[in-house]
């Protein structure tokens, strides 16, 4: 008998002696077998479903893809190789190209910063209205929450494309689109954070007759501020990517240069922009995780 089974049997025997009802070991074993079989069936079904999705999905994808899968795999390294050979040809001048794109990167980056700051501020102002324990009435809670939901589920791209059509090509539509999406996403996170705060400071301020805005300012915001800052940093990273993408569809910044270089097939410029983007996002990632660890340490302390 394998050790696992013996352990189970011992446990079953103990249960048998302890229970009032007469349960035979055989019936328990039977139950166990049924459960094990059920589990096995579920696992097989689950694995089967995954295999089915992968196989049929890849089949559909292969059918409707412009190029074929096998050719794609063969050619996978061609493009990166092209880029690197172009960059190698440029020699030391490549670093000059990298430097020349820094103003565009700065534009995209500051657009992301601006939309994060504005979005986070608006979300911070609105979110006390969206929490059940603080809002003046329940109708406001529902209205503000649904607004957050709508803003959040609309992809930035849809907003941005419509605004680009209305305002012409500039970075402003991207800023507005990213800001609106940020309000939705941050509003939800902040209101969830506010729902979980310690209510004692709120009660304390209420007891001395503080007004609603005073309670929010002095009892609520100080509690969520570290969380707000850490979420904002996380959001900044997302927004840098988002504004790059929006630049790609027409809203200025480094994304626009990337489109142009791609279309002109200047491999060295494409590689320079990719390098800048990866460097920025990685640096932001490290910076924000460093600051977040500090802030979260502060929360738990």
């Amino acid at each position, binding site marked *: 008998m394998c*050790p*696992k089974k013996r*352990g189970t049997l011992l446990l079953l025997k103990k249960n048998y002696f302890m229970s009032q009802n007469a349960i035979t070991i055989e019936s328990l074993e039977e139950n166990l077998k049924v459960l094990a079989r059920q589990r096995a069936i579920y696992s097989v079904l689950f694995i089967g479903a*995954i295999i089915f*999705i*992968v196989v049929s*999905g*890849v089949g*559909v*994808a*292969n059918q*409707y*893809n*412009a*190029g074929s*899968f096998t*050719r*794609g*795999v063969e*050619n*996978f390294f*061609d*493009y990166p190789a092209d880029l690197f050979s172009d960059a190698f040809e440029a020699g030391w001048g490549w670093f000059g190209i990298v430097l020349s794109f820094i103003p565009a990167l700065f534009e995209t980056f*500051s657009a992301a910063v*601006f939309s994060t*700051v*504005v979005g986070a*501020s608006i979300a911070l102002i609105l979110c006390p209205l969206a929490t059940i324990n603080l809002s003046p009435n329940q109708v406001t809670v529902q209205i503000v929450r649904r607004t957050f*939901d*709508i803003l959040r*589920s*609309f*992809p*930035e*791209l*849809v907003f941005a*494309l*419509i605004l680009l*059509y*209305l*305002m*012409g090509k*500039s*970075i*402003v539509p991207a800023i507005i689109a990213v800001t609106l999406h940020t309000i939705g996403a941050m509003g939800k996170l902040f209101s*969830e954070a506010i*729902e*979980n705060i310690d209510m004692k400071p709120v009660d304390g301020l209420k007891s001395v007759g503080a007004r609603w805005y005073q309670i929010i300012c002095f009892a609520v915001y100080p509690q969520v501020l570290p969380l707000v800052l850490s979420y904002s940093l996380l959001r900044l990273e997302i927004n840098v*990517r988002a504004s*790059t*993408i929006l630049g*790609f*569809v027409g809203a200025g910044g480094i994304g626009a240069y*990337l489109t142009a270089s791609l279309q002109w097939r200047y491999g060295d410029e494409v590689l320079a922009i*990719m390098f800048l*983007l*990866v460097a920025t*996002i*990685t640096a932001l*990632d490290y910076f924000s995780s460093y600051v977040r660890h500090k802030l979260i340490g502060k929360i738990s302390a």
Partner: protein
Amino acid sequence: MSIAVYDREVSFQEIYQSVEKKAYYQKLTTLVSIGAILLYFVFSIIQFDLGSISRKWSPERASRLFLDTYAHKDHVVMNWKDTSKISVNFEGDYRYQYPSFPEWLERIGDGKDIAILTFNSGSKAIFRDDKIIFEQSKSEDRKFIFGIGDNGKPYAEAYDNDGNEKDLPNWIRVTESKVEVRPSLYERIQIYKRKVEVHRYEFGWKYFWFDFFSPLKDYSLPEALSLIFSNERIEPDKTNFELVFSEISDNEQWMHGTVLFSILETLLMAVLGTLLASLLGLPLAFLAAYNITPFKFIRFSLRRLFDMLRGIDMIIWCLIFVRSFGPGLFTGIFAIAFTDTGTLGKLMSEAIENADNKQQEGVKSTGASTILQHRFGIIPQIMPVFISQSLYYLESNTRGAVILGAMGAGGIGLQLLGAIRTGNDFENVGYMAVLIVLLVTVMDQMSAFLRRFLIGIEKN
């Protein structure tokens, strides 16, 4: 007065002072940070030239766009030279010409009036040989006359109830070559030197189910569906069932078939991408965790691989893949799979390292092999994290797949980009936007449900 703190006496005054000092510094920090943010706003408004919004924003375009998303219009065009011919076209498309006048356009032909067009609001436009008479149905009951003067230029005149001439209201604009009349959002009359064009808007999406040329265009959807169960065939060579569904999916204007297929493509991209990432990420995460893999070299190189996959953004992967796989689903699938393999691999390897080793030791004490130790000692601990993270990525990748689509991976993103770029079919843009929001919301709810179902953790 003073109190004892630890081993020394501290006067109340001292405490007050320190408290006040702290409060003062806190207030100062708050004020300075608010001031800094405001200053940053001012700086940014100048930097991004946000003032240009008001200059670039064209309310006319915006209102037209908004109107087009929920309303449709019919164009009525009359040539001044040949007033016997009045053409009525749906959305002004030359192919969608009504064979006979619709009920809101009445042909009179008594020698004076040619036709009378009734707007939704009850206002009337009377077509005559040399002019258009527009009668407003509002309380003032005002009357306007537009036409071509003797000098060949369009003119506009306004009269009150008693027939006295009045000043033109501001919704009539007269230029050298054109008179533009827009009494309300739903009515528009344009008088040119050669022709007059009247746009009549109506609420709703017309021909949504069956297009202009469909044999079923006069049927509503329930009527058409009930046709399925009748034996009389509308088209002799097709069953009614086939006819109804092929007409719906081949709708020329709304392209239901294409749009739904693109939605499916986007969904497939997200699901397959996330699935591949999870299937690749989990084993790699085991190899990258120090309590599983003793070889430092493997761990280190896998960690760097995760960093690379994660650090290179999804868009950049998309651009690289679009070159090798061509525009299509594979591009999107692999862009998502590559990025998320990195993220999931990193997250899961951290989760594995943080797993409690008591369970593993327990399994080990029964004499189980290493693989069984991992299977029963570690996997049950990390499974909830793995499932919830995978579902979370599935949800966010649905949104990402829409964007990847616009960047060359196909799917609904590309359709949306196309519809907006043509700048004409805003009802399609609205339709697709609604579908995208629905897709995202459904995925959101579904992943929340699955998370609860599989892990059993209630929200909050």
